[in-house]
């Protein structure tokens, strides 16, 4: 398993883009997002998500609303804004070459 500190530092800047990415195909509610992040190993606990969502909300990248659901009670749904979609697109453009460059370094090192 990867060293925990390395993981924390790497994750920090990436998780918010992953949240944006998870919303590309439509709104999701909090519990859904939180569990998905944890299942993927992107978040340490359920609560990691909410400070991040609140920041994305303040920055205008994500909007939220209470909406009726088939579960009966209204749920709080999060959706991507236009700016949020643009930020994710910009991240994807940056990430791919970066990932390739890191992969090359790792390959050479091994």
């Amino acid at each position: 398993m990867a060293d925990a500190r390395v993981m924390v530092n790497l994750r920090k800047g990436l998780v918010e883009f992953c949240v944006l990415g998870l919303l590309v195909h439509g709104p999701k509610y909090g519990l859904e997002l939180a569990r998905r992040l944890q299942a993927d190993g992107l978040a340490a606990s359920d609560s990691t998500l909410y400070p991040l969502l609140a920041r994305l909300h303040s920055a205008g990248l994500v909007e939220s609303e209470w909406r009726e659901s088939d579960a009966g009670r209204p749920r709080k749904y999060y959706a991507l804004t236009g700016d949020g979609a643009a930020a994710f697109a910009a991240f994807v453009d940056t990430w791919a070459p970066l990932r390739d460059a890191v992969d090359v370094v790792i390959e050479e090192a091994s």
Partner: protein
Amino acid sequence: MIAPDLPARSTRWLTEVASDLDRLPAGERAELLDGLRAHVREALDAGESEAEVLARLGEPAAVAAEALVASPGPALSVPLGPPAPLGYWNSKRIVQLTALVLALLAYLALAFAVPVYSTYSTDSGGSGTSGDQTLAEANGIAVLFVMAIPVVLTAIPLIVRGRAWPTVSLVTGLLVVAFVLIASLSIGWFFVPAMIAAIVAVALPPRAGRSPRA
């Protein structure tokens, strides 16, 4: 009331998080608490026990700490733009520049143009010579260095940036005043306009005209 429809332990947990978030902007704080409240509700509705839900959320203090770290992500800088840079120029700088220009003008006038000694001097032999002399002509080159003091003093705050700047502005401003007072019997008056500008600059707040980031 933080969460009227939630069980007691969850309400306590949320209250504790809320009390640690004073420093967060109000809108962000409300959105965060609303999100957490919704999460607890959703998890309880999904059949999880309250203990389980709270355990998976973690310590209230940890949530608050996470929320209060300076936003690390580059995503946030896309719509917000880069943090407003502390610009070099503001009204205080401009007045300081004015002080420097006035001090320089006084210096040049004293050094080369204005005849300070327009009277009569007698030598040891008793014969008088009359004529106009500038300060340098009368007192030699050394006086040019003395007169340069207010020029240097008004220039220093323009070179300094950052935290020390207001203090440096204050100290150099006071030194200009001291210089003018000490020299008020002779050349000091020439530097009065520069001194006034320096005093105005000291009085101005360092960031006048720049509204703080919301």
